[in-house]
């Protein structure tokens, strides 16, 4: 299962990639929204693990752009923002689910599995 991680924090990005690979996901990692959009439009992924706070093009913009381009894979957003407005905006942009930081890695894996299972898709 291919997962694209879009996370600008180098340590968290590397950690997520390493952890998901340990869980036998095919995890790739990019550090900016622009790279994320470019990669997701040219390659096929089963899930996008997207940080909200990204420089220039933030997570909401990335989700909006991909949905407009017709990409239907699940988008799981990681966010340190927890205001109702932010969450609503993210869901309106086409995000499938949100996880607040800090999160339990086991729960992250559960969510990924649930979002990519046939019943969810």
């Amino acid at each position: 299962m291919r997962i694209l991680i879009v996370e600008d924090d180098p340590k968290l990005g590397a950690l997520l990639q390493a952890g998901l690979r340990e869980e036998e996901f095919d995890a790739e990692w990019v550090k900016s929204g622009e790279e994320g959009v470019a990669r997701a439009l040219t390659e096929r992924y089963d899930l996008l693990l997207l940080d909200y706070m990204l420089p220039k093009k933030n997570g909401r913009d990335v989700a909006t752009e991909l949905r407009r381009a017709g990409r239907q894979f699940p988008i799981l957003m990681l966010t340190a923002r927890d205001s109702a407005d932010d969450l609503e905006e993210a869901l309106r942009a086409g995000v499938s689910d949100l996880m607040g930081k800090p999160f339990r890695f086991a729960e992250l894996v559960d969510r990924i599995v649930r979002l990519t299972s046939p019943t969810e898709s």
Partner: protein
Amino acid sequence: MAFSLGRTLAVRFALTMGLALVAIALWAYRGTTQILRDQLDRSLHSSYQVQSAALALQGSIVPLPNVDEQGFIEINRMVVGRDVTGRIVQANADLAMDLALDSIAFRRALKGQPTTTDGTWRGRRVRAFYGPARGTAGAVAVLEVASFVAPIQAASRDALFRMIATALLGALASLAGALWLIRSALEPVEAIARQAGAMQGGRTGQRITAHADVIELRGLIEVLNQMLERLERSYEWHRQIVRDLGHDLRTPIATMRATVEMALWTERPLDQYREALASTLEEIDRLTHITDAFSLLAKLESGDLVPTLVQTDVRTVAGQAVDRAREVGGHDIRFTRPDEALQAPVDARLLGIVVDQLLDNARRHTPPGTKVDVAVAAQDGHVRVIVEDEGPGVSEDKIGQLFNRFYRGDPARGRQAGLGLGLTLAAALVDLHGGRITAERRSPRGLRIRIELPSGPPGDSLSNSHRSEARQDQPDRAR
């Protein structure tokens, strides 16, 4: 103890008015009494002239009709002729024979000097005019004309009573008017207070609008609204800081949690545990950096931070900050400095934080591997520290706000970890040193931040009005 301003002012005004009216009444009473007395004197003199002419013509005083004592008092005119001894030899009525003699006035009249004086008739006060009798009318040497003063005293008393009553009524009317006026004047203030009291905490954009059209209150309302705006901005800023603090703490905490959780996930080699612990330690340092910045800014905001200014070689302070940044790695940090010492009165710890913040800002907003230039130099009695990067710079409309305490960062510069307060904190610390911080866009790309610190003794600093500036002095070709 609370008291009513309106009631106090009204009572004071009414008392003042009452006293003024009583003084006017007393002054008017004295004037009226004097006028009545003068009129009586003129009247007595006229009567004297008539009776004197009658005496000269017919040898006798014109008599009054035969009346009783009450009638005599009401007619109120006694005329007597006195001989050279002062004895009454003629009178216009028998009752007038009891008129008492004023020997001084009588003697003066004998000498040809008419005199008006006060006398008595059967215990009643009278006003008497003594004048020489004209011609040789028998034994009459002096003609005396007298009137009771009781009627004018009664008239004066009546006038005084009316005036005092008018003064008291005037004072009462003043009190009522003053209460009404003061209530009218204070009503807008109460309305403003009601509106201010009804404002709800946490809601923005609330302003005083009551009576804002009253010219006399416009200034007060403007000041209140400006104060509300300042409070609102300050509140917004603090709310934003608390929100951002929460946000900025979450990423390192998330990293630490994931690191520890994954370390415990399964059995691992020892070096992976070591790596996890080292990573966690780095994140703890990152959290410490964020909380330190937050704490320092809070101290600056409350005025609790007092710098210890000591003559220091700024090259050393900047060099140590450069070393710290190089330890972090990721960028090509170059340091240019003169051979001679650059002494300035600074707090080395705080200035170190300033340079740390500038370098941190440059590193965070520029791609890894790019150059960051740090230079220190002396110029025009100041010591300069300049940090230049090759990042995207700051957009034209944002450069003026870089050091603004309410500025939250330009999206073009990307994510601002560490609360995004780096430049705000640096500017506040430079201000604390009496220095100046400016920002300008570099051509073709990048940002240059310049600090100028006075190299003279403490206190000999730059004008406050020129601190913390940002400008764009080169054409923007990069963006």
